[in-house]
């Protein structure tokens, strides 16, 4: 255990209220309780300080610091959950912050939240390590030097008054802001100036969709897509399960239609038409790859078909060429049309005309109001690229007097304009609210660091009428200040975020309350705070009728150059704000399984042509004067030929901090090379075309260099089919993941089951170990699991899994207890991509247990395979003998030197020392806690009362955990499922973890079986 650093004491108490404790109801921020909060932190329950040991072989003297004055509802050593809102991205999912002894430790999904439905993505899960990041700014900077708030404020206020006099332009740049309160305050702040503007800049923007709706519906909004209503779903490149707009919500909705049962053998039909291999594509029933510049063409033809089906044919039919046969498109159109009202077409294109066509299709399919909603639209993307473009022009023409940037690294994400940096340098007043010294902050005159999300009060309205609250769960660890508070100070009506929030709610939110809500503001507020969100009447928006006439025929785009480059974001790295998060960097990409940095995805046949293998460094350049960069290549199965793909949000300033992460020994390779950054910034390839940032760039050339840099990949072999040259006859494919198709399933629910030459019931020896009490088990529905990897981070955060760095991962020594195996099987169109979460299977006949000489891994009477770290001597025999290879060995002492970062460690789980084996414990600490809780209330453990970390956070709700001996439990039911099977069943190790067979909504028969 470590002590809270001193700087946590020196914060001014004023600006902070008291969070509501979920169990004990709300407690509000009066003066005494704020003092309590300070003490609370200081003492942090039992933060133990090690005093000097004075001889005589005694254990070191440990002092235990109780509170001087015990705060209400604070019990040392107990987890307390606070309902809040995630701010990892503008999606604003519901958050349940688990805090212990005053430290937020575990991010979980808010079960009742209407959007995220208890799920939370990897990025949200990884918030805590960002909070305890010792590299965050400790206070305001003035001209790059650390300074005091008072002086900084004074200078800034002066500067603003000058600007007012000179009537200079003020520009405030932020990414999409879902917080009504903050929005209101920004508007109020800007209102003081004559020429002021709030520019919303989304690094990954969907402005084309908004613009398209402005054109077709007369209101610039992003529709709220209701995927759970969609029976037929066609997505053009939109990676809605991975990164597109609101992945957690979409995953939950999508997976709710992916569970065919005996009674209702039905599920949604999902077609993905894309150029690169996206997470969504890997989960589609049917995946079609097309050249990127064909997208609009295919779409317009689809629009044509649908329109004519709807009886309103477009006058000019588009040209009929391209890779996708006309009949194909026709059949797709028919499928959509038959399911009209329950069908939806999505598209990630940044081309307005294309999006208009999409709107037309969805309009004809009667989608509006059913499968997508513009009356209660989504606020999750508001970026207007036109404004950004205009801003850039203004900046380069020196027309801006003051530039304020919050929550986005302008220079990094607008790398396409090389002259921008100088332009920014010329601005008289530049203020950054960044928590770190990013590229813009390092140029800005003043840096007024914002709080970390978990330190600040806020709210969010992701969808019209759904408002959620974010509350602080710890005092600011650094001398930071909320943006809202800074603005308030400068427009000299100082307030605290807490007060601002309450007053705004009183003014605008409270009046919008629904009838059944309490008429008392305090009650209303308290309840919203306790539940974390509240549903209110949506703000009135004027949505015009659909103007079909607006639809123009699409002009044929012609590709130049040999490659077209797609810029995308990794599931683990939505934007550059997370570039300092080691958990996210070490999270294997769900598709490529690569960690630490970005790379150029090349299609297999292109790679063969150029003689490329993984890790060869290639040079990507757009024209002679255009941008260019060098990155290692990755041969990506399922990527369309002539396409390159590079992830954005890499190569961020300060990421060289990771150079020395992981063990340092003489053969170790650094995670970040000398004077380089982690990955390369590909934002330079983003260009503004017809009023939108284009993430697709054609005319790109690729050339191989002589250099190499191995990719840190967690999976080296990618197929369920063993290599042909060593494949035994009749056993070319391994039935690790079992498949069937919907109509096969409809005929026989056991379709796809694999026959083994073994009888699972015959035992070599008599059943000597009956499980009379609990018997814990887990079932994972492979049909729901999308491979989004949220569970991986959930597990890492819950179980103190160390970060080991590039070199260790490269050496196949990643430490994740929960991994997700990704397999490609088949070729081209009918290639299947499987995602299989794999963790300790807790076998009843565990091979690992038998071989341990010192009884360090044994079987519990409740069916758990226990690993006792303190008994382990590290022979690694168990790992060798594990058929699933889920055991992880501490090859080195993985460092825990950063005392601040150590605050992220979960006190309930032992931190493993060097030389011991570790693995998934099925969150035994939670099981034990749950049992103790139940026992002390004299009740049996209720089903669902104990949830494993991976299960809790799973957005797809694919994991079921519980007591197999409990006949009423969900797990018992799940085990009865005809799709259920166990991996490597034929070994008769009798795993406690089962899987549910994959069912694809396809016509042809299943692969295996």
């Amino acid at each position, binding site marked *: 255990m470590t002590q809270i650093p001193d700087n946590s004491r020196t914060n001014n108490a004023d600006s902070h209220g008291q969070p509501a404790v979920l169990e004990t109801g709300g407690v509000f921020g009066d003066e005494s309780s704020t003092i309590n909060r300070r003490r609370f932190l200081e003492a942090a329950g039992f933060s133990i300080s090690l005093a000097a040991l004075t001889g005589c072989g005694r254990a070191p003297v440990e002092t235990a610091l109780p509170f001087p004055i015990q705060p209400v509802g604070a019990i040392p050593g*107990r987890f307390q959950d606070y309902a809040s809102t995630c701010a990892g991205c503008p999606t604003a999912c519901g958050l349940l912050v688990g805090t212990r002894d005053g430290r937020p430790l575990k991010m979980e999904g808010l079960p009742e939240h209407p959007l995220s439905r208890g799920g939370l993505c990897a990025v949200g899960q990884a918030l805590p390590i960002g909070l305890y990041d010792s590299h965050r700014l400790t206070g305001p900077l003035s001209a790059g030097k650390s300074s005091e708030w008072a002086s900084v404020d004074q200078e800034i206020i002066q500067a603003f008054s000058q600007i007012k006099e000179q009537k200079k332009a003020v520009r405030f740049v932020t990414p999409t802001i879902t917080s009504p309160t903050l929005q209101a305050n920004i508007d109020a702040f800007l209102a003081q100036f004559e020429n002021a503007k709030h520019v919303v800049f989304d690094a990954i923007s969907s402005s084309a969709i908004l613009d398209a709706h402005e054109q077709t519906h007369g209101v610039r909004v992003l529709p709220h897509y209701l995927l759970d209503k969609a029976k037929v779903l066609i997505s053009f490149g939109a990676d809605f399960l991975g990164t597109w707009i609101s992945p957690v919500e979409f995953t939950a909705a999508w997976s709710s239609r992916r569970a065919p049962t005996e009674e209702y053998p039905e599920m949604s039909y999902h077609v993905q038409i894309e150029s690169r291999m996206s997470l969504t594509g890997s989960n589609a029933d049917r995946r079609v790859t097309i050249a990127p510049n064909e997208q609009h063409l295919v779409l317009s033809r689809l629009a044509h078909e649908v329109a004519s089906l709807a009886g309103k044919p477009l006058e000019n039919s588009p040209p009929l060429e391209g890779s996708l046969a006309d009949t194909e498109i026709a059949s797709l159109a028919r499928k959509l049309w038959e399911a009209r009202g329950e069908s939806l077409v999505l598209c990630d294109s940044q081309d307005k005309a294309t999006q208009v066509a999409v709107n037309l299709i969805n309009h004809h399919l009667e989608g509006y109001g059913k499968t997508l909603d513009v009356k209660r639209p989504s606020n999750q993307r508001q970026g207007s690229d036109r404004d950004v473009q205009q801003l850039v022009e203004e900046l380069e023409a020196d027309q801006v007097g003051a530039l304020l940037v919050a929550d986005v690294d302008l220079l990094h994400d607008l790398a396409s304009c090389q002259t921008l940096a100088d332009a920014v340098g010329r601005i008289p007043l530049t203020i950054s609210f960044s928590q770190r010294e990013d590229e813009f902050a390092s140029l800005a005159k003043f840096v007024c660091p914002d709080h970390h999300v978990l330190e600040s009060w806020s709210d969010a309205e992701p969808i019209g009428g759904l408002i959620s609250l974010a509350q602080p769960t710890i005092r600011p660890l650094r001398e930071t200040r909320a943006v809202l508070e800074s603005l308030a100070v400068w427009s000299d009506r100082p307030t605290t975020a807490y007060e601002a929030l309450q007053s705004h709610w009183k003014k605008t939110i409270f009046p919008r309350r629904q009838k059944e809500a309490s008429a008392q503001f305090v009650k209303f507020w308290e309840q919203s705070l306790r539940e974390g969100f509240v549903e209110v009447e949506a703000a009135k928006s004027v949505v015009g009728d659909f103007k079909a006439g607006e639809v123009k025929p699409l002009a044929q785009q012609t590709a130049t150059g040999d490659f077209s480059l797609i810029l995308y974001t990794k599931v683990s790295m939505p934007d550059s704000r997370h570039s300092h998060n080691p958990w996210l960097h070490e999270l294997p990409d769900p598709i490529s399984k690569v960690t630490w940095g970005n790379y150029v995805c090349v299609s297999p046949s292109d790679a063969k042509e150029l003689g490329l293998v993984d890790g060869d460094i290639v040079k990507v350049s757009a024209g002679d004067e255009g941008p260019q960069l060098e990155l290692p290549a990755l041969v990506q199965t399922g990527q369309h030929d002539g396409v390159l793909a590079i992830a954005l949000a890499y190569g961020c300033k300060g990421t060289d901090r990771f150079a020395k992460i992981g063990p340092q020994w003489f053969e170790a390779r650094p995670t970040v090379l000398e004077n380089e950054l982690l990955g390369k910034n590909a934002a330079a390839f983003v260009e503004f075309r017809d009023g939108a940032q284009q993430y697709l760039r054609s005319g790109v050339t690729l050339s191989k260099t002589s250099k190499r840099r191995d990719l840190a990949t967690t999976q080296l072999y990618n197929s369920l089919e063993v290599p042909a040259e060593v494949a035994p006859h009749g056993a070319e494919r391994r039935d690790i993941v079992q498949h069937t198709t919907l109509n096969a399933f409809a005929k026989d629910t056991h379709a796809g089951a694999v026959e083994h030459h073994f009888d699972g019931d015959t035992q070599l020896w008599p059943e000597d170990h009956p499980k009379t009490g609990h018997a814990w088990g887990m079932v994972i529905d492979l049909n729901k699991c999308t491979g989004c990897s949220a569970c991986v981070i959930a597990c890492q955060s819950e179980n103190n899994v160390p970060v080991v760095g590039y070199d260790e991962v490269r050496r196949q020594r990643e430490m994740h207890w929960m991994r997700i195996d990704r397999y490609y099987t088949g070729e081209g169109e009918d290639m299947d991509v499987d995602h299989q979460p794999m963790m300790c299977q807790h076998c009843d006949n565990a091979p690992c247990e038998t071989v341990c000489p010192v009884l360090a891994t044994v079987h519990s009477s409740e069916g758990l395979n226990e690993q006792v770290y303190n008994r382990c001597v590290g022979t690694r025999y168990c790992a060798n003998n594990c058929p699933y290879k889920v055991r992880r060995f501490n090859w080195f002492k993985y460092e825990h030197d950063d005392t601040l970062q150590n605050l992220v460690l979960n006190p309930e789980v032992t931190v493993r020392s060097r030389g011991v084996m570790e693995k998934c414990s099925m969150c035994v600490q939670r099981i034990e806690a749950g049992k103790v809780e139940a026992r002390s209330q004299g009740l049996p453990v209720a089903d669902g009362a104990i949830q494993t970390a991976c299960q809790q956070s799973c957005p797809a709700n694919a994991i079921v955990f519980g007591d197999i001996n409990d006949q009423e439990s969900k797990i018992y039911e799940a085990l009865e499922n005809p799709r259920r099977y166990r991996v490597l069943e034929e070994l008769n190790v009798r795993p406690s973890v089962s899987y549910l067979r994959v069912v694809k909504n396809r016509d042809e028969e299943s692969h295996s079986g």
Partner: protein
Amino acid sequence: MQQRVTTIVLLIGLCFGLSLLVSAMGTWRLPDNQQGYAPKQPIAYSHRLHAGELQIDCKFCHSASESSRHAGIPSADVCMKCHRYVTAPFDVMQQEMKLADKEKRKPEMIVSEELQKLYDALALDENFQPIEGATPQSIPWVRVHNLPDYARFNHQAHVTVGVSCQKCHGPVETMERVRQHATLSMGWCVNCHRDATREGINGRKVHASTNCSVCHH
């Protein structure tokens, strides 16, 4: 002849050595066994007085013991529940009152030096009002019962099923300064668990598991 003598001498020596070893066994302790550890505390708090003489229930101060894994060392404000009024040993205060009665004056407040430390920690002035600007400090109690980080003991689990505090902490109510009563070795825990499962606790049947993961996770 000589040989026989030497052998006899050797044998005697051996017996002597063995007897020494056996006698030593009693006092000999394994390296990590802290049994009997009784560190000096910042405030000379007497469990004998409070728990013994005054019969204050353990859970009155260690209130978390039923709801958390830690029994919880009481916060200083808990002490103030009584020591707002009791500022010195009872007899001393009584004498003062008697004296005051005789001398027809208001009894003046006597503050014992140990209790003064408490008031200082809470930053209270002589009439127990918080001193402006001063912030209360935690009292740095010295931990008596230290388990290694990989061994997890949960007070809630034991207290709620009716394991008496003394079972592990010994006759605390007789201790002037608290000392580690048991060895706190793994064997000691395991044996207690076995007994509990066999004999139950206070006549009630319990299942005290000996699964490794109950304590090690």
